[in-house]
């Protein structure tokens, strides 16, 4: 496993996984901006990830694209690459690298729980596991997302003269919130911030049930009473959100577990809905992968490294430039 360095770079064949800067060959795990960047020569990813990159950065964001199906092997010299579902967002993948009988898995961002907006996580046995650790502390134990979305639905019922603005990342989380609302039989039109439009259209085209949605337009303020509006977190603090009648500011994120964080961000209705594994899922994945060597990328890695050591697993943190804690999607 010395073939890959702490920046997820395989020097031997000049291949990077999720590089921050433009590179020759880049394997991209999923479409979030801290993983998928503009300007590589050759991008290898799932079809959906490639579609999403094109939507976000334009058709020419890379010179060449190679779409891979989940489970389809792709070889460069004596390295075999296979993508498996990561359950994070539409198109998200783990990368299995096989070389000389050594199996190494890079999870990318992943979650184990069920999600109708993407293919669910598949456990891949390996010798070396490079896992994320966004929620790598035992305080993070994500509740059932159905209960969380019910809080939103109840609040909408009670507060008839308010509108609810839900902060959710434009790619993945927004559509998941919409899908969860539909699963709980919320049938009203959902209003979205303009920056979500193309991605929502894409999810619909991919037959993900997010129901009827419409871009927020400059209608009479009172129109939005009792409506649900979904916007990227950055818009919550912006003037954009002030036009609405008595808005109740909500946020769908795993960080909402901690009340103090919600309070600092001015969130009145925190919804703990995460697209990352929680602590128990991280431990479970580490155990079931049978890997003896655990490397931990971005997040709260200290506690996870400590835990692995108590389990006699080789473990160390990788610090990947450009992905500091808490800024990731």
């Amino acid at each position, binding site marked *: 496993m010395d073939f890959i360095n702490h920046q997820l770079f395989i020097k031997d064949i000049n291949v990077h996984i999720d590089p921050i800067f433009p590179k020759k060959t880049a394997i991209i795990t999923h479409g979030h901006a801290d993983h998928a960047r503009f300007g590589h020569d050759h991008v290898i990813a799932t079809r959906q990830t490639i579609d999403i990159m094109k939507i976000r950065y334009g058709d020419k964001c890379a010179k060449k694209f190679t779409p891979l199906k989940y489970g389809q092997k792709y070889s460069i010299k004596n390295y075999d690459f296979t993508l498996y579902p990561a359950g994070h967002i539409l198109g998200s993948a783990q990368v299995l690298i096989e070389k000389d009988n050594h199996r190494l898995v890079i999870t990318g961002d992943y979650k184990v729980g069920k999600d109708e907006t993407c293919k669910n996580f598949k456990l891949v046995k390996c010798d070396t596991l490079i896992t994320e650790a966004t929620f790598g*502390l*035992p*305080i*993070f134990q994500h509740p059932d997302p159905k209960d969380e979305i019910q809080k939103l639905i109840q609040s909408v019922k009670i507060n008839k003269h308010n509108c609810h603005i839900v902060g959710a990342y434009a790619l993945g989380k927004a559509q998941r919130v919409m899908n969860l609302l539909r699963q709980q039989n919320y049938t009203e039109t959902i209003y979205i911030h303009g920056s979500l439009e193309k991605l929502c259209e894409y999810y619909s085209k991919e037959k993900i049930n997010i129901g009827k949605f419409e871009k927020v337009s400059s209608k009479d303020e009172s129109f939005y009473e009792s409506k649900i509006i979904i916007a990227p977190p950055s818009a919550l603090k912006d003037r954009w959100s002030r036009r609405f009648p008595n808005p109740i500011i909500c946020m769908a994120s795993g960080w909402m577990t*901690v*009340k103090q*964080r919600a309070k*600092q961000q001015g969130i*009145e209705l925190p919804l703990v809905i995460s697209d990352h594994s929680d602590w128990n899922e991280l431990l479970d994945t580490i155990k079931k992968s049978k890997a003896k060597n655990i490397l931990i990328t971005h997040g709260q890695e200290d506690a996870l490294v400590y835990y692995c050591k*108590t389990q006699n697993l080789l473990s160390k943190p990788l610090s990947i430039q450009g992905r500091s804690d808490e800024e990731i999607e």
Partner: protein
Amino acid sequence: MKKFSSLLHNLILTPSRNTKIKLLQDYFKTLDINRAYALAILSNQLSFQFIKASKLRELVYEQVDKHLFDFSYDYVGDLAETISLIWPTKIGGRSKNLSTLIENIKEIEKSEINKEFTKILSQLSNNERWTLIKICTGGLRIGVSERLVKTALADLYKKSINEIEEIWHGLQFPYHNLFQWLKNETSKPKIDFRKLFHPMMLANPVDEEKDFKKLNANEFQAEYKWDGIRVQLMVSPKSVSLYSRTGENISSAFPEIIEFTRGDAVIDGELLVGKNFKPHSFNDLQQRLNRKKASKDLQGKFPVFIRAYDILFYKGKDLRKLFLFERRKYLEKFQKENKSNKIDISSIIKFSTWAELTKYKNNFDDDLNEGVMIKLKNSEYLPGRKKGYWYKWKKNPKLVDAILMYAQRGHGKRSSYYSDFTFGVWKKNELVPIGKAYSGYTDKELLVLDKFIRNNTTNKFGPVREVKKEIILEVAFDDVFPSNRHKSGVAMRFPRIHRIRWDKPINEVISIEEFKKEFKIS
């Protein structure tokens, strides 16, 4: 419990004052005993003897790995929240209401506390657990002041808030008399004020530029601001008791005061260490603080006395509606009638202009006053920090430039930021830490420092990050004392970050020897 914990949850997350008031009122509309407990909790009058922060840590360490807990606590920055989140999966149990739960806890025998309290914590939901721990450790910090609770009650029952204020401190759980009066079923509760702690009148810091233009020096009297602890002394022919600023009874820690005080009055003053009314430094007083009892030996080494500022009651007469200059006459009378070597009176500084007062503020013989107090002669004794009556004018702080060495995440509202800074000065070619500060900076400076720390960490020791040595902080502090508990040999009093010295290179920072010389520490 479910209802009360969602009340607290909503209160902490609601920025709007009106919404908070409405949430409180909705809860107070319920007519059962839970309402009384809620009022006791919100006004900080409920406490549990056996369950303190240290006990809770002990219990959580029985449930989860100590290191994993410490990593988590460092991240969350709030003990109640960390414990409530990390506590392992619940056993399940019937949901109890607030009053039953509190009564159950009060009945637990001390020897059973670990077992029983663990059981209770395991049966609650995250949010209920958080609420219960907040209740037990006190200090809710949910952005609801006592004043807001009173406002909610006053609005709900159409009473004036001043009427509620007047009787507030005489009220006791379960507040039957209060609620009956609020509902107009009885007349206003009668309270014997002589037996109660009276909330103190506090001063606002003076804004030299704004305030001195507005304020007429002739209408004010000035006194030295002494660097001890503020106390309230209640003397009656039958008993004497001493209270701290927050209303805690601290009589047993200062037996000499209790023994040698006579008379019939309620006195407001400063507790100081010293002989013959000559105060020593706060460092000496510290030897007497945070102790339940004081040995004869300690009393001999660090004798205490009270420097009286004000008088609230004299022989049963309530003086709080009189003006300060009138109360002063009663204070002098009390002093004359009850000569004691444990109480003297704070002297009044003669001055006629603000400029003249400056020299008293900054130059007092042995440096023991913290500055001066400026009080409106015509001020009633008003509890709380009301604007326009009393001001404190602190000495210019001492300043030193020091190098940022370590940082740690803060607690409470600063918990996601690296906001606790350790700084040091040179000792030969190395740095030696001289203090730690977690205030004084602006929000902007905090962001800059936080970012610097994240990007320039050279080493981690648990929650502490060592950083590249290149940021110079100008640190302000009230005083500095010799200390054998610190490597540097010095201990600062109230250090805070004054500003960041972007202009200064680190080799121009002074050495510990120079520091000690400058601030006269041997």
